[in-house]
């Protein structure tokens, strides 16, 4: 009995030796990245959550002992702060107007570049993609001058069509749309490439069959292109929305959140509260509200994706 058990263990050991070696090697290979992610990502996320329930401020930065827990007070304070609602509304405007606009421009451009009738396709693909790789800070500086009311290129060009000068970034009603236009210009090339890949994955014979059945260009677009492109579109909308919720550099460089807080975004407010006024507990709560909003949107997208797959 005892001998039999021993034998069994031994044979299992022999069989598993290479397996165990592999597992050890696997964890060794994983160690550097997992350690970095644990210490510099997971722990900070958890700490931020704890922090959002404290009154962590400039005094606490110097002396941790003065930190006090204050339950949900930061969160209730956030929702009692008119500036936060303004920032949230502005961010939603940027996401819900800029996001769909950017995806629509990307899809339209992808269809045009992918068309059999288009010439010099690689050239256009490269040109449309150029803004994506540029530094957002640098192009925001450039666009700030383009938008200048008195001698910006945009108003000068419009004056030839008899349009009176527009104060793009100085008018609270126009500043956010102006930032949306910059964002679409900067980003549409990225999603365009993903759409082009999606379009090229649609089997050509689907179109041929539809053609034989007498379906015109528009019918083919509605019956084949749109449904076949749906998974790509959901993916593109998802990454665009998550990115757009993090609006920061454009208002930081172009308007500093103004005029009259018309371009104050959630992340800009978090940055100012956290790193300018050192209200870090309050800022951490703002960050988590943003996270919650992004999470809700991501879950919605996943549900839509599941539905599409069925």
């Amino acid at each position: 009995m005892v001998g039999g058990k021993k034998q069994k263990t031994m044979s299992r050991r022999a069989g598993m030796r290479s397996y165990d070696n592999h597992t050890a090697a696997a964890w060794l290979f994983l160690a550097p990245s997992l350690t970095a992610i644990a210490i510099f990502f997971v722990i900070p996320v958890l700490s931020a959550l704890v922090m959002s329930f404290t009154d962590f401020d400039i005094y606490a930065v110097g002396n941790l002992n003065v930190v006090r827990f204050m339950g949900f007070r930061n969160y209730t304070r956030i929702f009692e702060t008119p500036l936060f609602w303004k920032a949230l509304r502005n961010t939603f405007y940027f996401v819900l107007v800029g996001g769909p606009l950017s995806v629509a421009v990307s899809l339209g451009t992808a269809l045009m570049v992918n068309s059999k009738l288009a010439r010099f396709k690689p050239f256009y693909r490269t040109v449309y993609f150029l803004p994506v790789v540029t530094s957002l800070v640098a192009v925001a500086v450039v666009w700030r001058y383009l938008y200048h009311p008195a001698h910006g290129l945009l108003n000068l060009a419009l004056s030839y069509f008899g349009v009176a000068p527009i104060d793009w970034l100085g008018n609270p009603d126009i500043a956010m749309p102006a930032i949306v236009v910059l964002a679409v210009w900067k980003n549409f090339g990225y999603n365009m490439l993903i759409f082009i890949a999606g379009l090229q994955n649609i089997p050509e014979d689907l179109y041929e069959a539809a053609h034989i059945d007498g379906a015109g260009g528009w019918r083919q677009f509605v019956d084949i292109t749109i449904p076949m492109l749906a998974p790509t579109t959901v993916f593109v909308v998802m990454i665009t929305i998550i990115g757009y919720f993090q609006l920061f550099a454009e208002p930081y460089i172009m308007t500093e959140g103004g005029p009259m807080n018309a371009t104050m975004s959630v992340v800009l407010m978090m940055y100012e509260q956290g790193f300018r006024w050192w209200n870090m507990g309050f800022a951490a709560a703002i960050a988590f509200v943003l996270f919650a909003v992004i999470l809700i949107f991501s879950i919605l997208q996943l549900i839509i994706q599941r539905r599409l797959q069925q």
Partner: protein
Amino acid sequence: MKGRTIAVVLNAGLVFLALITLTPVVWMVSASFMIPGEASTAPLHFFPAHPTLEHYQVLAERLHVGRYFLNSFIIASAVTLISLVFNSMAGFVFAKYQFPGRDKLFRFLLAGMIVPAQVTMLPLFLMLKSMGLINTYVGVIIPGLASIFGIFLIRQFAGSIPDSLIEAARIDGASEFKVYRSVVLPLCKPILLTLALFTFMGTWNDFMWPLIVMTDNANYTLPVAIANLKGEHLLDLELMMAGSVVTILPVLILFLAFQRHYVRGIMVGGVKE
């Protein structure tokens, strides 16, 4: 005939869109060679009447742009090299090793991609402060040591390496590290180049984190320096354009030189699980 009209309209649309896309970039370059005040004087003109290099000279001699360039270059290179090693090892494991908990761990990492980086910034700042790493290269580099997206990208690619190649190396007596170093890494070269481009350009263009960590002017990266320059030199349009050119040009050249490899990253990353 109808098809012909559509073709003309379509190609005209493409040209028009290309003009809109290029105008800000070309104007930036053009204005950076204009004499002070020229770009903001009516009537509108697009090209410099008397091209000058004086703004680049001022940037180099008085505003230490070389220093910022070097800071950006060191940080972006360090992040690229380190994260490439870390991510490729992890990606290889998730693609080719079987062990309990592997898929759970990978799903946990993927879920982490949804957390916006801003959530980590406040505690990370305090952590680095207690370690004395604020205002250092290391402080800026730390969040980029490993990236979940990078691990994902490598895993997708390494999955296509035939198991038989890895097994053959093991039978020949190669250690696991040797398998990684001599079999997996060479075969992953295309995706490593892609990831290197993504990481370098992403780090070069990153703004918020270096803005937070670098408190001393001499340590600024180019985007932070440009944002700071804007405060004092907002009225020097031509000078600011030259600064923007210096910030954008390196990544633009990298992109144009390695376009094909860069684009592949978007395609692989865009393919759903």
